């Protein structure tokens, strides 16, 4: 365990933990957009700035800085607050419609940005380029269907050539993880439309109720987990019903249910 001091409070966390975790453990709420516990540290949004005051002086992003024994950290030093506020002002200017950013800014005492709206095309922008969608798709799902395109001010996220993606499995993890709700996904009949990625995937119908629910590209999972082949074909609702039914009938017959009854 590593012991450090955050805003005067002593905290102990395991070796290798990032400072942000320790800060949260100390009960301090820092804004962050690009950090997620399922993903490696990234350090792109630059919101979780804190000052290390001892044994050396440094302004660092808490999400990407590993804890060290004896660190003394101030989360609301003048320089950290100033940096955070400017970052938020620029993010407000980039995404003027984002409620998430506005609320974060309000919690830092900001009601508006001095920088206006960065450009007219930017008016409806919600993406802060935190990269969570890119990373979850690549590092957790393993599909790597989307990535950054362009650099600097032209940077954005998309599928290759911004055309229909062959790699997208339509899982929707990107939309789920997006902190600002910038990714639009819609289920329409037997199709799942991933508007942001110009991609459409087919949905499979549940053999019980006939509702479309599962993206066709993930059907390969049936092969990976063969013992539950049938359970993959049912929609979650029918699956629950079936399991409950089987459990009840097992109870009625005085049998011990193994949980594998469906295979």
């Amino acid at each position, binding site marked *: 365990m590593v012991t450090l001091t955050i805003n005067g409070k002593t905290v102990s966390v395991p070796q290798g933990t990032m400072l942000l975790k320790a800060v949260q453990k100390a009960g301090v709420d820092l804004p962050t957009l690009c950090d997620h516990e399922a993903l490696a540290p990234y350090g792109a949004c630059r919101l979780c700035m804190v000052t290390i005051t001892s044994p050396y002086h440094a302004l660092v992003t808490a999400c990407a800085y590993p804890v060290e024994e004896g660190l003394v950290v101030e989360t609301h030093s003048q320089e950290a607050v100033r940096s955070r506020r400017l970052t938020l002002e*620029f993010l407000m200017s980039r995404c003027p419609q984002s409620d998430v950013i506005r609320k974060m800014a309000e919690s830092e005492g900001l009601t508006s940005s001095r920088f206006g709206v*960065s450009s007219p095309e930017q008016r409806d922008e919600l993406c802060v380029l935190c990269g969570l969608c890119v990373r979850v798709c690549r590092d957790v799902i393993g599909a790597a269907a989307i990535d*950054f395109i362009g650099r600097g001010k032209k940077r954005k996220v998309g599928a290759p050539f911004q055309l229909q993606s062959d790699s997208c499995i339509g899982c929707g993890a990107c939309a789920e993880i997006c902190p600002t709700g910038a990714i639009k996904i819609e289920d329409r009949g037997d199709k799942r439309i991933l508007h942001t990625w110009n991609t459409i995937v087919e949905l499979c119908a549940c053999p019980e109720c006939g509702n479309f629910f599962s993206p066709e590209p993930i059907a390969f999972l049936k092969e990976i987990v063969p013992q539950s082949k049938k359970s993959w074909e049912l929609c979650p609702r029918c699956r629950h019903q079936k399991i409950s039914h089987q459990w009840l009938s097992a109870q009625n017959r005085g049998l011990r249910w193994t949980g594998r009854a469906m295979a």
Partner: protein
Amino acid sequence: MKIRTLSEIEKLRDIGLSFLYPQRPRISVGMATCGLAAGAAAVFDALSEEADRLGFDFTPVSTGCIGYCRQEPLVDVRMPDLGRILYAQMTPERARDLMGALSVGELPAEHALASIPEEGSDVSKCSAVSSGLPSIDQLPFYAHQHKIILRNSGLIDPCSIEEYVARGGFDSLGRALLKLSPQDVIDEITQSGLRGRGGAGFPTGKKWNACRHAAPKPRYVICNADEGDPGAYMDRTVLESDPYSIIEGMIIGGYAIGSNKGFVYVRDEYPLAIERIQHGIDRSKEVGLLGDDILGSGFDFSVEIVRGAGAFVCGEETALIASIEGGSGEPRPRPPYPAEKGLWGRPTTINNVKTWASVSAIVAKGAEWYSSIGTKGNAGTVVFSLVGKVANTGLVEVPLGLTLKEMIEGIGNGGLDGKVVKAVQTGGPSGGCLPAGLFHLPIDYESLTQAGSIMGSGGMVVMDEDTCMVDVARYFLNFTMEESCGKCTPCREGTQYMYGILTRIVEGRGTPEDVVLLEEIGNWVKASSLCGLGQTASNPVLSTLRYFRDEYDAHVREKRCPAGVCRALIQLSITPELCNGCGLCKRECPVGAIQGEKKEPHSIDAKLCTRCRTCYDICPQGAVKIVR
């Protein structure tokens, strides 16, 4: 021929010496990219053709950069028993004349820049020398220089391993592999005081030590040759002029940290550098100085070239590593540092071209020798490309601790065309502009950082009274804005906004509040960005705000550009007393803004004029004036 022992290196040395000091004349033309751009290839061809015609027997050599860019193309002529002279500003025609004189056994004085003294040679017979030609170390341009990194540059054929060996090459390698333990090598580098020549100045020995004691093998060695600063060409020149010095340094580094694989990451815009380093690698393999069991020491090492696609941010070490791995060139947060987790998650030592070239010099001559050069804490030499509005431009290598004044007024010989030097920009787009008032500062890592600039990789751009500092800041910021990868918010959004403010200022729409805001955002980008690119991106802005605030004020308060550069803030006019009505400006004006009868004074219609300055530049009478 495979070299397995030190004595076999000696054989290579003998061959090399016979190449360097042949019995017949040896004529070397500086043919690095800089020389080629100045027309060296045509000079080389003219020399060969003329010699063929005259039946003159000589050894033609295309050597690397001789350094004195202002005097390119340069030709180094060595006549046995007669002397050795460096000829400057050659043209094919002059080359033919020169060859004519040489063929009758004469070293002519025309276009001779300096004599190059050689040990044991008698130059009394050379009329050019006896008529007062200075020797090369008497020229102010070369007098302050101390060449370690550039020790072979312009002297050897970069494609000849024999000549490299003849100049003491691979002595270091022999000593390191056969006489020293890896830890001894690291200690030697540590004691020498060598610091990273990429710009940050991290102690090289410390970096190697950390890498050696990180996770077990495999470990990797990388040479960072992704140079991309505007106005900088040090790394390219070293690669083009002396590739073996880098290869040797990398083998020693690999031995020291316990790595068997090295990569040279070089941008694809440097085709000649790639060609020469590839040739160096192939030839080293051929003679057994790369590959398995080098010099019978049991140590294996190989080097591979990785060509970068020209993103400036790939010069940042973590982005460079991502690029080698096949990802897009984006930095990641440090720690962990590459010494701990670098290429493919393995311990990696990454150093600049000039650092590797220094290593191969240090191990041969020892730490004590190297640390005696330069100043305490800033040992050794550093290479600069001295460019801009300075009389002597060129590639120079000086001991650390030399003052900016000695650099600009001594080596550079002051402003171009006698103009007054106003500032110097070190470190390229990551550096800052230092005013003439600070030219007493020594060139070392700490002094430059304290003054608001950085040492950087070696760009040194001189500016004179005709340079607008706001315009310069805008130029460099535009560069970093375009090259920002866009990963982190401050660098991506901040540089764009600052560029917008600077554009407003140079267009005469800036306000005093803009200047205050510029400083605030600049400090934020510097403090909060993820990597070195963003952390230094505002240096040109912050340093000009610090030292040339009056120029910003003139732009925003008086709507005036004191240097007469910013188009929106100047007017062009013709002085009637000076104009002789030649009509040149009228013909050349792209918008037809100039009227006037022949032989009568002309005038400029301010409404039509776009202030392109064509008339100002071409007027033979100097009658066009910039009204500031």
